[in-house]
Every structure is written in C-alpha cells, then in structure tokens.
C-alpha cells in the first residue's frame, strides 16, 4: 500500500476527512471570534473597540454564510443533508449542526445586525432606487417605524441578543470541538479539553481576523486607523492567546506525563509527519513568536508605526497558526493507525471536489461576500474628508 509506513488497518489507509473538514472549524471559529469581539462592545462596554463593532458582525455573517459549503462538498450525498433537520439523531454531536447553525444565523447574527442597522435600512429603502430599493424594502419587513422609542427597544433587545449570542457562539464552535473530543476511538482527538481549546483558538483567530480587516479596510478608505482601538484589540488578543496556549500546553504535558498506549505512536507522528505543521508553524512561528512580540508591546513603549507593524505580523501569524492547529487535529488524527503500529500519508488533490483550489476558494468567498455586505450595509460613518495624518 503506497504511502503507508508500518501497519494500518486496511480501511484506514485512505483519509476520509479532507482539507475541507479542516476548513469548516476554521471558518466557524472566525465567526465565533468575530462575534466575541463585537460582544466586547455591546455587553462588556469596551468602547475602545467600537469602531470594529459593525465590521465584526458583518465579517461573522460573511463567514457563517460560507461555513456549510465545505461540508456540502465533502458529503457523499449532500442532497440528503436535510435529513439532519428532519431526523436528527439525539446522541450525535454532528446532528446538532443544522439547528445550532440556523439558530445562530437567524436568531443571533441576522437579528442583531438587523436591529443595529434598522434605521439605515428604513432610510435607504426610501432614498434608493431600483433593485436596491426593493432589497432594502424587503429587509424592513414592511415596518418603517424608526421612532426614538422603537430604536430604544432595538437597543435593549439587541443587548439581550448579544448576551444570548455569546454562549450561542461558544455552542456553534464548541460543538465542533466536541465532535472530535468525544471520539473514544481516536486518542489524538478524545479529550474533554478539545471543545475548550477550539473555542479559545477560535476567539484568537476571529479577533485577529477582524483586526486585520479593520486595518486593511481603513487603509483602503484612506482613513486614519484608530490606534487606541487596535491597541485594545491586540491586548485582548494577547491575553486570550495566553489562555489558549496554556490549554494546549496542558494537553501536551498531560499526554507526555501519562504516556498511555497511544503516546509513542502519537509522539513519533508529531516529530515526523506533523513536524512542520505543528512544531514549526503552529507552535514556534505561530504561537511563541507572536506571544513574545505582543508581550513586548505590552511592556515596551513602541511607536505607533512599529506597533501597527507588529500587530499586522502577529495577526497574520495567528491566522495561519490557528489554521495549522485545525489541520494538525483533523489530518493528524487520521495519519496514524488505531493499531498504533503505523502511519499513512495525506496528499491534497488540486482540482477535485475536496481539493486545494476549492479550499482556497472557500477562503476567498467570504471576503467577496463581506465586500457585498459592506456595500449594502456600510459599517462605518459617511466618508470624512480627513486623511490619514501619519503613514500606515
């Protein structure tokens, strides 16, 4: 059998969960993380990050709309996926997906965005023409009430929605961690820490993603980046990353210490097949380096330009590192044999239904959707003539 070292059970040689299954938790992680950033403003009253509030919500929506697509492309029979709505199996974590997704999309994200934008939606439904007018009119659901009182009610209800949205976001992404963490057959996955690690790494990646998007879109609009906003985001990113890193290290130390029957096989796998993706990319370049640099920004007073550059670098490394983490969990969990006697290889195809091009497409698509959403529901106030005072 090609690509196999040692012994694999014959049916284990092929990997059944491809790069698309790596993408899915990555995307829902970005959704959850972006939403947490938005909730910092709405629930925890961190006014400093207010400039990113609407952008974070739209980012979450853009990625959430794309989230089911990798799953649909992976399924052997995607036309049967409505079965998850009609006959969900109560003992299966995966069966939750349909309902959790729908709940989060409609009862949290769309609801909150609608409440926050309702005033603009109603105004635009009266001021625009043609197809756009129709779109806005539909979005008003036929109500043109933007009185003080109604907007105040929106504000209050929106606060409750965000409050409910926080555990909903944890559920949306945490259940994915549980899908892996509850599989006793696979010692690389089976762990009560798995949902928690997934949630915290999701928060870091989502916050980093929105930070980068904020900086990029602000630059594209030739506006000044609110440095206080970005400083605050980076601070949250840093502290949440420390928690995430501690959890992952706890898992690692626990494994090495207990050294159960799976340890030798997994240890060898990490040092050979996953060396680049886990040790180099996820841990050294993707975690230790950004943590160190962010730590420096917390204790040393760098200039604005230097801080921005560090944030961009760290944010990018974090985005890559969290993707690597998903890769190491999903693909890593299938590279070793459950007999602990061998390994197989995973070759990503290029142009197949579950190949690299499709994966890249699913990463670009949310950005295109975000662009459309930004046009439809601008997250920032009307363009000011004030240009950026300093570069970057």
């Amino acid at each position, binding site marked *: 059998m090609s690509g196999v070292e040692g*012994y*694999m*059970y*014959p*049916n*284990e040689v*092929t990997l*059944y*969960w491809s790069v698309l299954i790596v993408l899915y938790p990555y995307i829902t992680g970005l959704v959850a993380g972006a939403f947490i950033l938005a909730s910092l403003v709405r629930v925890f009253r961190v006014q400093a990050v207010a400039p990113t509030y609407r952008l974070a919500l739209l980012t979450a929506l853009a990625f959430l709309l794309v989230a089911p697509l990798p799953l649909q492309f*992976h*399924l*052997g*029979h*995607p036309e*049967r*996926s409505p*079965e*998850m709505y009609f*006959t*969900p*199996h109560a*003992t*299966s*974590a*995966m*069966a939750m*997906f349909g309902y959790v997704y729908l709940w989060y999309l409609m009862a949290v994200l769309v609801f909150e965005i609608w409440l926050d934008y309702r005033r603009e939606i109603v105004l635009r439904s009266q001021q625009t023409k043609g197809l756009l007018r129709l779109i806005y009119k539909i979005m008003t659901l036929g109500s043109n009430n933007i009185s003080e009182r109604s907007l105040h009610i929106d504000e209050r209800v929106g606060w409750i929605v965000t409050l409910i949205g926080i555990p909903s976001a944890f559920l949306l992404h945490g259940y994915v961690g549980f*899908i892996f963490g*509850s*599989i*006793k*057959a*696979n010692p690389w996955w089976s762990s009560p820490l798995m949902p928690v690690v997934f949630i915290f790494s999701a928060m870091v990646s989502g916050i980093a993603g929105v930070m980068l998007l904020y900086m990029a879109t602000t630059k594209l609009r030739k506006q000044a980046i609110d440095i206080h906003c970005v400083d605050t985001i980076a601070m949250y990113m840093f502290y949440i990353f420390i928690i995430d890193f501690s959890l992952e290290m706890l898992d690692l130390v626990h494994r090495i210490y207990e050294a159960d029957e799976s340890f030798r096989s997994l240890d060898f796998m990490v040092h050979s097949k996953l060396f680049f993706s886990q040790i180099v990319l996820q841990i050294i370049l993707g975690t230790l380096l950004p943590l160190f640099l962010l730590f420096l920004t917390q204790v040393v007073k760098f200039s604005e330009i230097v801080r921005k550059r560090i944030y961009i670098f760290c944010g990018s490394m974090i985005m890559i590192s969290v993707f690597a983490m998903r890769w190491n969990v999903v693909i890593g*969990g*299938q590279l070793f*044999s*459950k*007999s*602990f*006697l061998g390994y197989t290889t995973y070759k990503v195809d290029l142009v197949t239904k579950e190949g690299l091009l499709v994966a890249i497409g699913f990463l670009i698509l949310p950005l295109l959707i975000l662009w459309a959403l930004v046009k439809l529901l601008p997250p920032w106030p009307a363009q000011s003539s004030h240009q950026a005072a300093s570069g970057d």
Partner: protein
Amino acid sequence: MNISRRHILVLLPAAAVAWKHVLAGTPEDSPNYRMSDHWWGMLIDIPKCIGCGNCVRACQTENDVPDGFFRTWVERYHVTDTHLENPEVISPDGGKEGFPIAKEDEGKYFFVPKMCNHCADSPCTQVCPVGATFVAPDGVVLIDPKYCLGCAYCVQACPYGCRYIHPTKKVADKCTLCYHRITKGLTTACCEACPTGARQLADLKNPKDPIHEFLKMHAVQVLKPQMATGAKAFYNGLDGSVR
C-alpha cells in the same frame, strides 16, 4: 461426478423445493425468522486460523466488496520476546490471497481475522447524525444505504477500523454479518468458506448454539475491551499483543 440424466430428473424437483426459501427475496417468504428470537455474534478461534484468505475472498464475492476496501480481513502477527509491545503485523491486500511464507525464528506467528464486531453499545451508531446506521433488534449493526449522507463520522468513531466509505456509492459500508443469509437459516459467507472452522456464526439467544458451551470452556476475549463497546466478535486464544 457420475450423475446420470435419470438421477437429475429425480433430484431436480427435490432441489427446487429445497431452494424455495433460499430463492425468496423477502423475509415475508421466510416467515419463521423473528428478529427478537436472535442475538447474533461471531466466534473466532485463533489457533485454527491458517491465513488462507478464503473468508476475505468469499466476503468480497458474496457482498460485492470493492477492491481496496474490506468488510473482513486477516492480519498476521509476528511477536518476538524483545518486542512484546511492538508486534510486526502485515495484511497484504487484507490477506485476500493468503500470506507470504514465513521463516521459522524465535518469535511466534499467528493469524487474526478481523471484522465488524457488531457492538451492543456501538460507538458508530451513537455518532451517526441522521440514523442511517443502527443496531437491529437482533444485534446486527447495519447501514441504510438509502439514508446515509456519507459524512464518514461513523468511520472515525469505529475503534476497530472496520468501516469505509464505498468509493462509488459514496455511503458508509461494512460487514453486515451477511444479514441476507442469516435471516434465511444460512451461515455467513466467511464462515461457509473457512476450511478449518476458525470462524463460526453464533446466536447468543439460541440455547442450543455451541457458543454457550465454548464460552464456558475457553478463555475468550474481545478486541479493545477498554473501549467498552459491547463487542460481539469473541476471540479464542487472542494474544495480548493483538491490536
């Protein structure tokens, strides 16, 4: 064989009558089968297995198993004193055409046929999101190919590696304990083809089934007992090195 035409004329009708219940395609024509009367398992006798691969070939024939995937397979273990925890295991094409000749050395060799364990507390049915795989009332774990999404969650959840995604049907597939045979009073294809009696179908609810006596008289194990899957493939003479 020397059967004259006259013999044929006599024997054919007898054969036809005997085959009526076998040719029937639906359980309604085998009215004697009641699911609640049975609780199926399998007995695998390691000291008897010679690694001929008959079972693997018979299963592929009976169930149209695609090449490269296995509803059952045979592993050959080579255990030496110095590496008790690290046996050398091979399963060339699942053992379908037998195994290469082994040379005598200080270690011991043995063959281990593997298959779906038809677990009573099956982790694969626990994780199926839609109810496409299930434990039938007579203890056989089955897959409904018309309902399965092909998500492969069950494949990941099986500790024994007995499931796969069918390459053309794109649904999960695995050993069905030849359900279409055992419900008609036949034994499984692998048991039928095994020349040494290393594999034997067992009906735990049948008081006359030889498995009850066998379980009393032998030390019997299941694979990965720590997983508490309620596995019903019972192994006689299973070495501790078997994974």
